[in-house]
């Protein structure tokens, strides 16, 4: 190959690596001291809403997840995350609270990097568009019943919503299947680590909210 052509191929590789180092690898290095927690570690603290879900829909819950404990919670939030991805929920709902535009007043404490350092965020679901509100502080904001009704027919509880109805999360008797319960468990997990307006993460210094 003539030297001249090689120049541009090498340029491509070198500039790619330079950009990758500055914009990709350096954030990775910054985060390297925060351990990546497994789903089981994340699911060890089960939010009250998950136990409530087992009481709200006892038959369906028993069939889908058995008894409410860290093991079934891990299974539920993973399934919920996978459905969130395959329905591309993340195209219209973001998962981080910015320190500007009064977002801490609307949603809750500003997002901290260590909150996202776990396998549930593989891949991360930050999102780039908000047609509906941010969801990273959704846990406990609304009841399980509200969430289930909202998935079946968003306009029954939010009259001006443009969200699609996810009727295929329900059986022919309009009872929630494991898919609906998994999504609700996932939504009730998002931000369950925020206690009294403070972001808590086991083994890590608590980061204060700014609201």
């Amino acid at each position: 190959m003539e030297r001249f052509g090689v120049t541009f191929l090498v340029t491509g590789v070198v500039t790619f690596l330079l950009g990758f180092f500055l914009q990709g690898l350096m954030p990775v290095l910054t985060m390297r001291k925060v351990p990546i927690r497994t789903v089981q570690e994340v699911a060890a603290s089960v939010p009250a809403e998950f136990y409530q879900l087992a009481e709200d829909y006892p038959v369906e819950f028993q069939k889908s997840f058995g008894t409410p404990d860290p093991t079934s919670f891990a299974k539920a939030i993973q399934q919920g995350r996978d459905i969130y991805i395959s329905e591309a929920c993340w195209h219209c709902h973001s998962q981080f609270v910015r320190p500007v535009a009064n977002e801490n007043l609307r949603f809750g404490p500003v997002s901290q990097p260590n909150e996202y350092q776990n396998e549930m965020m593989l891949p991360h679901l930050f999102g780039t568009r908000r047609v509906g509100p941010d969801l990273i502080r959704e846990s406990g904001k609304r009841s399980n019943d509200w969430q289930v009704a909202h998935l079946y027919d968003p306009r029954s509880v939010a009259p001006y919503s443009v969200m699609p109805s996810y009727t295929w999360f329900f059986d022919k008797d309009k009872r929630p299947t494991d898919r609906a319960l998994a999504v609700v468990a996932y939504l009730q997990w998002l931000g369950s680590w925020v206690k009294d307006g403070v972001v808590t993460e086991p083994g890590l210094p608590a980061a204060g909210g700014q609201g």
Partner: protein
Amino acid sequence: MIATVDRRPLVNLTLVRWHLIASSIFLAISLLGGLAYAFQFNNMYPFAGIEWLSPGRVRMVHTNMAAYGFIANAFIAGMLFAIPRLTKRPILSDQLGMLIFVAWQLCMVLTIGGQLLGYGQAIEWGETPIFVDPLIVVGLVLLVVNIAAPIVTTAENGLYVTLWYFLAAFAWTGLVYFMGNYLPQFWVPGTAGAAITGLYIHDLVGLFVTPIGWGLMYFFVPLLLRKPIWSHALSLIGFWGLAFFYPMQGVHHFLFSPIPMYAQYGAVVATIAIEIVVLTVLVNFFGTLHGRSEAVRGNLAIRWFYTGMIMYGITCFQCAFQVTLTFQKVIHFSDWVVGHAHMVMFGVFGFWIFGFFVELWPRAVGRAWVHPRLLTMHYWFTVIGLILMIIDLTAAGLVQGYSWGALSHWSKSVMDSMPFWWVRSVAGLMIIAGQVFFFYALWATARRPAEGTVPAPIPAEAA
């Protein structure tokens, strides 16, 4: 047609034709998906209640088919035409070219099927299902081997600027695709993973679409205007500026996120830098047009090219402002960004591709355009429809951003957006109406009886 030693024609027009056909089919799929998705915002989604045609899934088809179906196929067609003519060498293998063509369309079909069945990947612009990603990487490598071969073996002295862009893009595209689709999916979670997907969102446009697009501009514009590029020095500045600054600004897609602030500041500075650099490219092309500006009226391909370049100028001007933290407070997460994306992907690269079609389709099918007037209609419907959409979405973004910042109830931002979403659907219908003229013209031209003479390559506008 210049015959080479092995008596193959220099340009494999059959391959060019097939890629153009595939490109137009995926354009139609992408546009219909976008229209259906827009109707969701008017509460009149046509496929409501059908799981595999859910709006979220259809949106993935819309964006992915725009990038990998419509743009990639048309760019491959353009490169299959430009590279042999610049190097005086045919591509490595016509059979391999056909294999890549079939494999690429198979990837597209698998992507559509996978996304509709719920196997989409949560990487923006890389929603191609995980099982399709390895096929695409292999396809890209084979494509590069096939069309880089003539550049490597050419006996020409020195490489033309088009080939600089192509060679750099060949190195970039595979690396970028691998990085974006694998690292955040399997190894890098959370904020660092977000930094890498930001880089992927950006590099897909910056290191795949933009260099190949500009490379083809450097080829087609001097060819059609029958004069050389205005300034070689500006070509050099444009290329090296793009190569240096473009790869280091991915995090600007996640400003004010938990990604470390040094990466965010770096991305903002690099973005503003590149906007200044790309101005030199625009100056270069408008310098080339100087003295031949009547071509914008008489030659439809040139008109598409320069309309796209004006869009490019507006995009970059807008980008230099919207990337600042001041603007980001208001416009991030809003429809402003959606308008920006449409201006880049459709207004710049889509318009250039229509220019390629105007020039290449008559050569690919061996017939002159049947109804040049239809192409003029296509131009005006598409351009006016898109400009309407951009203005509408930009304004909607401001309304939404200020509504959120003012802590209005969330439903207020949705209600206030309703009229804008109606205008967006109307603009989308207008663009699709334009494409109906276009598709009919493509079909009618391909079906017209052969005249036995090679048609004039530059169709004059009827009006």
